[in-house]
């Protein structure tokens, strides 16, 4: 019988010698184009626009004469916004305070988060597998809750007259602070009490996310390594410090980077709980950007602040990668 099969000829790239089946090109273009268009129009272009705005004294309430409303009543001022950050003016003072608040918040949240989540992950991992999932679900619930709801709930807890926290403190015979969120004269070790209160609320909501990641990482550590350590006479602490912790370094890097990234951009919990007060003690950079852009209509100044925040996050992330990188795998 004659061979009627028609051999399929694939397109070949004569340079590489690799071939693609018919339609693969179309599939790649068809799936990537919407994604690329989305990324360009909703991520890249807004970032470029925000960067450009930082060089103008731009307000959306004023009609400019040039491209996209720039120029005219929205003049080009070069590095004017960036120079103003070092000026002896109230907006500059609030900006510098916001930078300090942002760093304070992020650098307190990270170690506290790790101190809570890692031991808890080890504890949860050690229980019976039947109830491990229950604990994981319970601890993860705050993470999937609305930030607004969490902030409102903690406002009730911190209420100076009817709040749960003050009731508990009084029930054990202690005197609670005058106000957790609104007393500008309340500090603990130099940290505003309102900031500490917000950090507690944020940690409560956020720790479940890192807990789940640590639990997955712990499950990934080969049992043979632990067994070998025990055979060599290592006790629990030695096993933790010299086996578990080093092997968790890649996961720790991931958690540190993600926690810092999100901490630098926290807004909702600050706005709902304290609105940046008392006396700007809990005003982070993101709130400063929001207020300047949408309340004070100073979008040029807000854009410059957002670029500064971008540089800060970039630098901190790069430092973390440098300090916590690992050259090995298991």
């Amino acid at each position: 019988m004659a061979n009627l099969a028609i051999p399929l000829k694939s397109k070949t790239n004569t340079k590489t010698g690799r071939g693609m089946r018919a339609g693969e090109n179309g599939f790649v273009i068809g799936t990537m184009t919407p994604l690329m268009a989305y990324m360009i129009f909703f991520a890249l272009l807004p970032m470029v626009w925000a960067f450009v705005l930082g060089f103008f004294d731009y307000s959306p309430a004023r009609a400019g004469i040039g491209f996209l409303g720039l120029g005219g009543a929205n003049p080009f001022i070069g590095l004017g916004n960036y120079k103003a950050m070092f000026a002896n003016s109230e907006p500059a003072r609030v900006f510098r305070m916001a930078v300090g608040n942002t760093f304070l918040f992020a650098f307190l949240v990270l170690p506290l988060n790790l101190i809570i989540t890692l031991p808890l992950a080890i504890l949860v991992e050690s229980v019976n597998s039947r109830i491990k999932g229950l604990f994981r679900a319970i601890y993860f619930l705050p993470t999937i809750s609305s930030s607004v709801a969490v902030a409102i709930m903690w406002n009730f807890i911190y209420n100076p007259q009817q709040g749960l926290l003050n009731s508990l403190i009084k029930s054990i015979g202690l005197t609670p602070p005058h106000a957790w969120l609104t007393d500008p004269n309340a500090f603990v070790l130099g940290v505003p009490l309102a900031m500490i209160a917000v950090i507690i609320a944020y940690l409560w909501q956020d720790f479940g996310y890192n807990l789940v990641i640590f639990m997955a990482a712990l499950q990934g550590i080969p049992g043979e390594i632990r067994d070998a350590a025990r055979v060599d006479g290592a006790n629990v602490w030695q096993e933790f410090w010299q086996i578990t912790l080093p092997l968790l370094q890649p996961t720790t890097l991931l958690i540190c980077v993600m926690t810092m990234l999100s901490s630098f951009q926290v807004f909702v919990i600050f706005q709902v709980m304290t609105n940046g007060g008392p006396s700007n003690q809990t005003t982070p950079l993101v709130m400063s950007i929001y207020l300047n852009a949408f309340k004070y209509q100073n979008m040029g100044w807000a854009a410059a602040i957002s670029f500064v925040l971008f540089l800060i996050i970039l630098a901190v992330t790069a430092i973390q990668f440098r300090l916590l990188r690992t050259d090995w795998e298991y």
Partner: protein
Amino acid sequence: MRKTIWFIVLVAALLLSACGGGLSGGGKVTLRLWGHQDPGFQKANDDLIAKFKAANPNIDVKYETFSYDDYIQKLQTSMAAGNEADVIEMFGTWTCSYALGGRLQEVPADIMTYDQAAKIFYKAPLDGYYCGDKLYGLPVEFNQENGGALVNPVLFEKHNVPYPPKWNTFADMIADAQKLTEYDASGKMTTSGFDFVTGDGLPATLFAGILEQGGSYFAADGKHFNFDTPEAKKTIQMMVDLVQKYKVVDPVLFNDTSNEVSTSFFTGNIAIGFRGSWAAGTGVSEYPDMKFGYVEIPTYFGGERHFAADSGWGEVVSVNTKHAAEAWKFVQFMMTVPENAMLYNIDSRTIPAMKVNVEKPDALLAVAPYMQATFDLLPHGQYVGNVTNHDQLFYEIIYPDVLEALQGVTTVDEAAKKINDDANAMVDAK
């Protein structure tokens, strides 16, 4: 090639769908109206739109609302893009920043001139729309944050304080407030006798106190401010005395962030709450079982009443509208016809900006009897003036700086100087 054509068709379809249609079929004009989300305001606009459409069958009105914070952002971003609504509900103190920025149309002379408007509207709300000697909109509301307070008769009775109150002087009111203040066993204030510590209350008190003493908060050029004056310091001292001397409010426990007046009053934690009459309207709808009153409070320094009002809600027309004649016809219908403006005030429970509706308020008082206390105050108000950026001045400068003085973080002199410096820096930054 075929894929390229489909891609172009898809993009073109998306672009075309983004274009607003101004014309419906058959030559009918469609106007777009934007407003903020509030049940009363939405009902007011819905009722008047229905009336307008019945009288003007060739004009359709599409009404969209946004939450307050989203509304401001929406205005800013859409105006920059040129796709804002034809008619915009705008607060008076916002208007000049948009008008002088070239975003709004001037009211045509055949609709209403400023001189004509000044005869029928109170100046305090009207002047919010008067920018650079031109009129850019018309008000429907007289926003009033001065001269009145919510009062809780249950607390008055509990402390044997006469109700309704008969205060001849501010000192009389403070004496009652001291009796009404409550503390718990640890000495923490649980009920404020007189709470005025709000983002609106502190600026309103500061401006009124300065004006009552015959002072001014504007510098000689009318653009910059002068808050570093004896009148301003005396007013701030008066507020500090309410906290530190008379102890009728603890500003750490009662402020905009904690136990805010318009909610904490209705939970029984404030005996006399300094708020605009709109708070009474909120109370009637959201706390229907709560017994409360709304009364006039005496002047701060015993003289003639003077206060600054920050205009009120009204309507403006975008400079980008393609249907200017129809847009102004709509604004004229809503804002200048007394029965239509009254309907708006009744539905939204707002104080009329139109004088004739205050002179004949029976229909309004039938639904909002608490407004009676404010009607006597209206002639004493003046527009707060071109304060450059109302929200920034009120909520980010005056409120926090005065609050710091009340909380003992700064002195009265430091607070007055800081308000002065911050306010002028705001002007210079624009």
